[in-house]
């Protein structure tokens, strides 16, 4: 249609699309799916790290971790707000998360088992997230792009903190080094999975790239992540758990083993180590919080009625 052509032309020209403007239904739907999935990931992503807040080993580490988890809740809030501009409410999105209709990043279905995992999540998981998000600062949808700019700034801060934890562990006692290596072993492949299946198996990609909802292919980003991360692991003195990892002079990048995609699909199906715990925790928070939300609503209604009555009386 002519509208669609005009829309695509604006995107091609690098213009930002804003909430009230016309957009194809597919664009809207794809964005809602993508932004809400990202928002849900921030929310569910609080849980694996939240698991260590009460056990953080120093007051400073506890404060840093608290601040980080708080930031994640904040990112969730920006992203839900961005999605809301597309005509879906936060409660609807929450229901989609809890019913399993909407997804969140599979990485959060893996457990955090030692303090080194706080390092690995910052270093690898936030690192992979940033790799995904940096290009999205240039995404075509205005509110999403602005949320991404804000989020990327904080994420790179988190990543540095994670790397710092990893460094302390990798250069600490034998037990700490063992934990650091174990964390890398457990988080390496799930981090590679964060970029999604290989381009050839990925749905939605073509159209999303045309709309600048997606900027790079999954495989491009994954390769970029490996290229950046491997030297960091070497710097830490840790071994990436991939015997076939090797520098490829020709492509100026590492050859590496693909993650086990059957595991990826199992986790997606709900059979990951912590799917039940994660969704269960969010469901419980939602259910237990019902009276709280209802109470605030009841108060707001009473207060409005009282104000109205006072206004009438004053007339």
């Amino acid at each position, binding site marked *: 249609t002519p509208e669609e052509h005009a829309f695509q032309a604006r995107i091609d020209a690098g213009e930002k699309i804003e909430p009230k403007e016309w957009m194809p239904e597919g664009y809207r739907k794809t964005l809602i799916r993508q932004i809400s999935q990202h928002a849900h990931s921030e*929310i569910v992503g*609080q*849980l694996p790290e*939240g698991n260590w*807040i*009460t*056990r*953080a*080993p*120093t*007051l*400073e*580490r*506890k*404060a840093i971790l*608290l*601040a980080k*988890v*708080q930031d994640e*809740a*904040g990112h*969730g*809030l920006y992203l*839900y707000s961005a999605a809301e501009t597309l005509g879906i409410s*936060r409660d609807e999105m929450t229901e989609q998360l809890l019913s399993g209709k909407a997804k969140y990043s599979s990485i959060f279905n893996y457990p955090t088992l030692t*303090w080194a995992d706080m390092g690995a999540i910052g270093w690898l998981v936030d690192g992979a997230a940033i790799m995904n998000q940096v290009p999205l600062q240039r995404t075509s949808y205005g509110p999403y792009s602005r949320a991404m700019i804000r989020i990327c700034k904080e994420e790179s801060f988190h990543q540095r903190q994670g790397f710092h*934890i990893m460094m*302390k*562990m990798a250069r*600490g*006692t034998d*037990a*700490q080094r063992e934990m650091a290596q174990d964390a890398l072993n457990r988080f390496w492949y799930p981090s590679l999975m964060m970029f999604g299946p290989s381009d050839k198996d990925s749905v939605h990609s073509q159209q999303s790239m045309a709309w600048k909802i997606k900027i790079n292919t999954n495989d491009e980003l994954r390769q970029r992540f490996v290229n950046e991360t491997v030297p960091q692991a070497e710097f830490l003195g840790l071994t990436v758990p991939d015997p076939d990892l090797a520098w490829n002079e020709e492509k100026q990048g590492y050859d590496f083993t693909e993650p086990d995609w059957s595991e990826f699909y199992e986790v997606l199906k709900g059979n990951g180590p912590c799917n039940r715990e994660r969704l269960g*925790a969010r469901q*419980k*928070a*939602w259910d*237990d*919080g*019902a*009276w*709280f*939300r*209802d*109470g*605030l*609503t*009841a*108060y*707001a209604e*009473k207060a409005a009625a009282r104000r109205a009555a006072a206004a009438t009386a004053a007339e």
Partner: protein
Amino acid sequence: RAPLVTGLCRLGDATLILGHRVSEWCGHGPALEEDIALANTALDLIGHTQMWLGLAAQVEGRGRSADDLAYHRDAMHFRNPLLVEVPNGDIGRTLMRLFLFDAWHHALLERLVSSSATEIAEIAAKALKEVHYHLDRSSDLVVRLGDGSEESHARMQAALDLLWPYTGELCFGDDTDAALAEAGILPEPGDLRSAWDATVRETLAEATLAVPEGRNDVQRGGRQGRHTEHLGYLLAEMQFLQRAYPGAEW
């Protein structure tokens, strides 16, 4: 010097244990805004802990750090009031506890800014701004939930009834307190009672909640090291890494 170390530990232990309890909510709050606010409160309280226990360690002069005090004392040597170690319960109890604590915390810090000990006055000045906001927020929520739905009212009243016997300890002094008050370093706990009482009664009235009839000083001993059975479990969790990996750096 020993009374001062005790007095500072009483402050730092209170914020540490309460900060721990609040932090247990991370990712489990009833609304996203609440998750953020609770994490923020916990963060402030841990920040205060670093300052109070840091100063306690410095005054003690035995080469210990704030972390040493937080992670290497067992329950018997903790000096927090019992109120802060009671389990969270539902979000209503958590918020009611914060309010009852904040009302005291605010009154205390308002006095501490003019402590004869300048380090204490400086810490108090930093903390007071945050705690002013804490009290604003917790009293506002107590009012809104108390005067909200039938269920929220009932839950807030139940929370208040359950916590009430622990509140008296906040304003209950002992010889250490008397010595520190004498020196103008910390106020006599009893002197905070009227300010606490005024804040609490005013807020509860607005919240349509009834002040419980029973004595409010039944449950005490924490500030002297006699705790509830809950603190040991809390510390086992909090201190695990420091205990399991002595000497490691993090």
